[in-house]
């Protein structure tokens, strides 16, 4: 597992409104937040956490950290992430939405060159129920357990986590790769992490319309994932060519870049079904399908 309670965490943009609300919540949940950064506001304290002007000052005082959670304003997020990479941080959680896509392209190239894991942007981050929170997941919807939950949205992820928890199905880890068009990590990356995680028995993937993430994930699951996967796709009734609220969820075929049907719920559901993956019709069906799978012996041998 990459995210353990022993991980030391820094918060960039800690004095942004969102940082001020969520940093104490993360800390209360058990996350070891050693410092915060807000350029020009160094010297303050938030919930007892010292705030610095720069990451390198924080690290020279507080020691090395493993992970940063970034609440910086969207046009400052790329710089915050590059600053983190420059001081050797290799796990970055980007919460803010509205980061320009070309900033993400720049960051992804840098992350690839330095083997850095990026979560987000426009993501509630990562939660390891009962252990640590890196972001804004509402902890009360989660319970410790063995379901790995991966999505690219926020509140629907909480809804599904709650449905699982209510059904007695706790979660090993839950992550949203984020709702923007250009994302720092991909479904295959996280499916691989969950496949290798000894705490995880079943993977639940919550998808939605737009792009081809789910199609790619379905293909990857069929090829490389041994653990059982349950999928759900939101947006069957969404109108075409309408942005549903975040940049990621739009079905379009700009400049002949995507096939005309790629990105629809039908395309995604049929990709999962072709790959032999069970698809839930509604959120409440997800726990039912997980229970059915847990009762049947594993389909694939290791």
């Amino acid at each position, binding site marked *: 597992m990459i995210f353990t309670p022993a991980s030391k965490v820094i918060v960039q*943009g800690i004095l*942004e*409104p*969102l*940082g001020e*609300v*969520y940093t104490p*919540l993360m800390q209360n949940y058990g996350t070891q937040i050693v410092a915060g950064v807000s350029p020009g506001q160094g010297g303050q304290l938030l919930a007892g956490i010292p705030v610095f002007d720069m990451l390198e000052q924080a690290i020279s005082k507080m020691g090395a950290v493993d992970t940063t959670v970034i*609440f910086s*304003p*969207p046009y400052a997020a790329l710089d915050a992430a590059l600053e983190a990479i420059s001081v050797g941080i290799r796990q970055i959680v980007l*919460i*803010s*939405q*509205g*980061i*320009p*896509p*070309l900033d993400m*392209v720049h960051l*992804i*190239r840098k992350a690839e060159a330095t083997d850095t894991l990026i979560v987000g*942007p*426009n993501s509630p981050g990562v939660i390891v129920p009962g252990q640590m929170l890196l972001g*804004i997941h*509402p902890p009360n919807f989660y319970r410790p357990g063995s379901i790995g939950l991966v*999505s690219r*949205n926020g*509140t*629907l992820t909480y*809804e599904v986590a*709650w449905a699982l928890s209510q059904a007695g199905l706790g979660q090993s880890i839950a992550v949203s790769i984020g*709702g923007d*068009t*250009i*994302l720092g990590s991909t479904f295959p990356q996280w499916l691989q992490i969950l496949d290798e995680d000894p705490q995880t028995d079943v993977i639940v993937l*919550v998808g*939605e319309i737009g*792009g*081809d*993430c789910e199609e*790619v994930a379905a293909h990857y699951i069929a090829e490389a994932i041994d653990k059982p996967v349950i999928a759900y796709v*939101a947006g*069957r*009734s969404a*109108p075409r060519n*309408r*942005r*549903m*609220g975040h*940049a*990621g*969820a739009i079905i379009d075929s*700009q*400049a*002949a*870049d*995507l096939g005309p049907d790629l990105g629809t719920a039908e395309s995604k559901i049929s990709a999962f079904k072709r790959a032999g993956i069970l698809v839930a019709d*509604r959120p*409440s069906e997800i726990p039912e399908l997980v229970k059915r799978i847990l009762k049947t012996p594993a389909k694939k041998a290791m």
Partner: protein
Amino acid sequence: MDLLEYQAKDLFREVGIPVLPAQRIERPTDLKALKIPYPIVLKSQVYIGERGRVGGIRFVNNTIDAIAAAHSIFNLSIVGEYPKVLLAEAKYDTQQEFYLAVVLNRSIRRPVLLGSKKGGIDVQNAIDEMQHVVVDQDFSSFYARRLTIKMGLSGDLINAVSDVVERMYRLFIDKDLDLVEINPLGVNAAGEVMALDGKISVNDAALGRHPALAALDSRPRKFVLDRLPDSLTTIDTDGQIAVLCNGAALTMATMDLVSQSGGKLLHYLNIGSETHHDWQPDTLCDRVDQGLKMLSQNKQVKVILVNLVGGTVPSDRIATTIARFLQRPPAPTLAIGAHKENLRISRGSALPKLVVRLLGTGMDEAKEILAVTPALVLDDLDSAIAQLITLVKRHEG
């Protein structure tokens, strides 16, 4: 945000992409002060494509014909849109027409250069021969040359076309574009190239750092970060249901459940998630209030399903907001139909019924608060949907 052709060409000119001498025409009489020699072409400046097929592009040889043509183009609606301005442009004798574009591919997370030797009006031709070059590392001119070679160009055209592609790419990066397209790029007998039509889309999230570009479009935004949309989307004109949720995927999942249960949805409203860097607990309550007002202004909405999955805001605070909304004296409402002409104001009509499903902390208090209101409160989503459908049937029956 899309730009009009003349705005795209202004940017092309700035970065050295060859464009024809041209002049903006804001009224037909502007043609009397034309500085370009005849013959010219007059082009309707609308956001919709394919204007050529419906008469939005006219070739004219003298001022009298030009003024007449301008009058008719100004009065020509293209899929409902009238031009505010025309573009008067010199003519160009092309021997070949190419398609060129730079677009961000979200799947491979890199910009992609697109090029086709068969550009022009017939898009299918262009697509059939489309070549792709992924700009996987820092851009350098060789990526543009690679595209021209894949397109099958040779000799001087390699350098002439790759120079245009390189300038398109720089524009794409400098201005945070989602798309820059030249179709067609005309090639004349001397092998000179000319951007004859162009399309530019600026990334909405990046508009804040390009104020000059943001100022080019005064229309209300379809979707603006950090605030509610200016207008509602209609899903089913017969629908009587509206849903109000926080978060795009939750909104879609809720809409799916309504539709799967046979409900007819008129409107949906996503009041946004908590991933804005300047989000504060008050933001959510303010938007619930504004959202309920927006949805209840259309009297065709009979039932609103509120489905909010809470983060930090306790449910009782949200319940208080909803209760306050319901207690307010009814405001004048607006029936928003498909056409402007149907707009009419009706006073004193009743508020829609509310089915409320909240997931979060402080649920007991929330229920207490809403118990004294007409709102129906349910704990789980499936029951809320069932209740919604029952209410709608009762209303219809």
